[in-house]
């Protein structure tokens, strides 16, 4: 196989996999045939490696560990929503500063930023509830850690509203 093509195909694999196999796999590809079938096989295998990784993801990893639980949408979505709400406040404050208001511009009907913040904060409540109901019986301690993290993010988002009387 053409060395360039071999290198390109090897680069399709995840970084962790490449750290271990890139050198020998590239040499292996270079010394083999370069048919369309071989190329398709490598592309498919590289994609498969992203979905079910062999490196950096031990097969016996505890599915109830803090890191594993945090990967579920019901765990990370509330965090993302709280941070998003904080981002909304920050962008509103920056907008106000840029327009000489010295902070968030108060509007009589609360305004878009306030509505966005409310939607993000209220929208995460059912997800939080679902997460707690699903995971507390399975892995109480790890779930409590995640819940604490979610509560921390929510408090961080609510703090400016409370302290700045927004």
């Amino acid at each position, binding site marked *: 196989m053409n060395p360039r093509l071999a290198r390109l195909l090897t680069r399709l694999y995840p970084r962790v996999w490449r750290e271990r196999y890139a050198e020998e796999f590239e040499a*292996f590809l270079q010394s*083999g045939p370069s048919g369309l079938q071989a190329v398709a096989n490598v592309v498919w295998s590289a994609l498969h490696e992203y979905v079910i990784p062999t490196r950096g993801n031990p097969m016996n990893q505890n599915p109830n560990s803090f890191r594993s639980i945090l990967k579920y949408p019901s765990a990370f979505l509330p965090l993302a929503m709280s941070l998003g709400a904080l981002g909304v406040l920050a962008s509103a404050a920056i907008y106000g500063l840029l327009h000489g208001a010295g902070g968030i511009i108060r509007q009589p009907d609360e305004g878009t930023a306030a509505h966005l913040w409310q939607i993000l904060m209220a929208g995460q409540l059912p997800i939080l509830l679902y997460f707690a109901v699903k995971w507390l019986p399975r892995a109480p301690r790890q779930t409590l850690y995640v819940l604490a993290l979610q509560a921390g993010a929510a408090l961080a988002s609510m703090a400016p509203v409370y302290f700045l009387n927004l």
Partner: protein
Amino acid sequence: MRSTRNVASPENDTAAGYFSDPPLLVLASLANGPKHGHAMIDDIDRLCGTRLGPGTLYGAIARLEQQGWIEPLPAEERRQPYRITVEGLRVLRAKLTTLQQFTKAGLRRLASL
């Protein structure tokens, strides 16, 4: 008129007999000594007529190495040979024994038809 759609032909037999469990094939290939990638592909081809693609082979190698069933030997020029571990031999023996029991039972059922 007789339909020829389901008539067995040597080509159909080959396709129907295609066996693909790459990790098991790699373990079986390494059972008679260490080999590098291309030697494994040729050996597996001779063993059961299945020719593994390069990505499939290295997918199997990575999984087997992760499980400690095969291990790399010092590289020879640019070729990387692998050998089966003691644990890998134990796993291969267990898998092949199960497969043998399954094959015997399946063939007995076919014979009784």
